[in-house]
């Protein structure tokens, strides 16, 4: 019994880190472009499908791990130009356009890749003993990849000129423009980065989830909950909330079932909205 709790808690941590990566993409896009990107889960789904497709085509998961986020970045640049920019600063309209984008992505994948769910063999086989249970090595590797990507992204935001510009545009696009920062291009790059992060999350998750055109539908609400609980615009909060929620859902699932776990998550989110509308971690990094 306690083994099950532990295993599901660790699973939650692994998933939490992957979802943190995806939710962080959602969060930077929201913070910079004021866009509620309903298609973000589908960009994750495209990442899982792309990960499987590239692995099958080239025989190398590791190539997919590098290539798919790069392709995701390019896809993000195109989508921002064609879909997002025409409706920018009209938050309500972006829900409609990204919802349309979501359907197009799903149907495009169904039309080309097919509707049947598939599974992908993990690139690293085997288990290791972890706190007295046998645990998949790949899941640990997946958590590690996600954590590295998260750390890399925060370093990029803090330490590079482009990262500094992204933070500046987020805070005050007008003054940034007057200082010579190409705000429209920064917005495009940010959307592309968010897309690349969702795609990377997709590749990392592909071996531990089912790969199909609907995967994004399940992940999106979870990402939104993480963003809300972490506090809108609080990037570190988003990461912490994603991990916290996933571990909590894992533990609740072990004593009950996934539906109850989701209900608990929603209750937590409602509580946060009621009592701490700026997020669980407001004040820490605002």
């Amino acid at each position, binding site marked *: 019994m306690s083994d099950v709790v532990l295993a599901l808690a660790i699973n939650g941590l692994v998933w939490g880190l992957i979802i943190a990566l995806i939710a962080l993409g959602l969060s930077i896009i929201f913070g910079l472009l004021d866009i509620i990107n309903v298609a973000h889960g589908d960009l994750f789904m495209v990442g899982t499908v792309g990960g499987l497709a590239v692995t099958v085509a080239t025989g190398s998961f590791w190539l997919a791990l590098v290539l798919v986020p790069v392709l995701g970045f390019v896809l993000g640049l195109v989508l921002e130009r064609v879909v997002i920019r025409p409706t920018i600063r009209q938050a309500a309209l972006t829900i409609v356009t990204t919802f349309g984008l979501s359907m197009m992505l799903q149907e495009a994948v169904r039309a080309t890749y097919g509707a049947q769910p598939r599974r992908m063999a993990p690139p690293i086989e085997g288990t290791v003993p972890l706190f007295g249970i046998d645990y998949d090595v790949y899941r640990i590797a997946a958590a590690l990849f996600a954590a590295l990507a998260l750390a890399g992204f925060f370093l990029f935001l803090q330490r590079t000129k482009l990262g500094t510009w992204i933070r500046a545009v987020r805070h005050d696009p007008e*003054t940034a423009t007057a200082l*010579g*920062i190409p705000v429209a291009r920064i917005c495009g790059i940010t959307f592309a980065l968010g897309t690349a992060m969702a795609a990377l999350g997709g590749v990392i998750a592909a071996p531990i989830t089912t790969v199909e055109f609907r995967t994004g539908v399940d992940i999106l609400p979870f990402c939104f909950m993480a963003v809300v609980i972490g506090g809108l615009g609080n990037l570190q909060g988003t990461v912490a909330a994603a991990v916290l929620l996933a571990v909590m859902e894992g533990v609740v699932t072990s004593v009950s079932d996934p539906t109850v776990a989701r209900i608990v998550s929603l209750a937590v989110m409602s509580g946060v909205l009621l009592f701490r509308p700026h997020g669980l971690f407001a004040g820490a990094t605002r």
Partner: protein
Amino acid sequence: MLSVAGLTADIGRIPVLKGVSISVAPGETVALLGRNGVGKTSTLRAVLGLLRRTGGSVSYQGQDLGGLAPHRLAALGLGYVPQGRGIFPLLTVEDNLCLGLKGKPPADLFAELYERFPRLAERRRQAAGTLSGGEQQILAIARCLIMRPSLIMLDEPTEGIMPKLVSQIRTEIAAIAKRGIAVLIVEQNLRTALRLADRVYLMERGQVVHEATPAALRETPDTVHRYLGVAL
């Protein structure tokens, strides 16, 4: 050097600029005065393309700014210190300072600025939001200077600043002008404006209604009272 003719602009559906014409010559200091809400800030924003122009023309050093993307103006030498300073509070002082530069600043200019503003040097690694209001204003001005502008537009640089620091900011602006940089300053503080400026425009309801030298304005206090509502 800067020439604005018949500039019009709307905010929402409301026309806030109804044909503003002003000019600034090289090295000249020009003040734009007027009561609250007459369109001073809007004038600066429309010149910079931050507020969409609906009519009129803006040219800088002979170049028409009509078709130019707003973020290109900084590279032409147009500096801007917005109302409320426009500091990025979560970025470090140094990141704020270098924000408009592509890479690292030229070492000599950097050293010179830090020598001139020792408070900024001391706190270069701290978040700019921890600076006092006056220090933030100095930072905003230094951030402008590091880009070597030929014209600086300042929007109410002494607004909400401790009296002690107001004179320092005034001295800084005078020093900028002395180095041959043209200045277009929006100011509520009439004394500061008249002391700094070579020429003054008075605005009312989206239009320039009067142009004079500070000396001429001092001769006609009733004009000042009529447009600014204050006594000299």
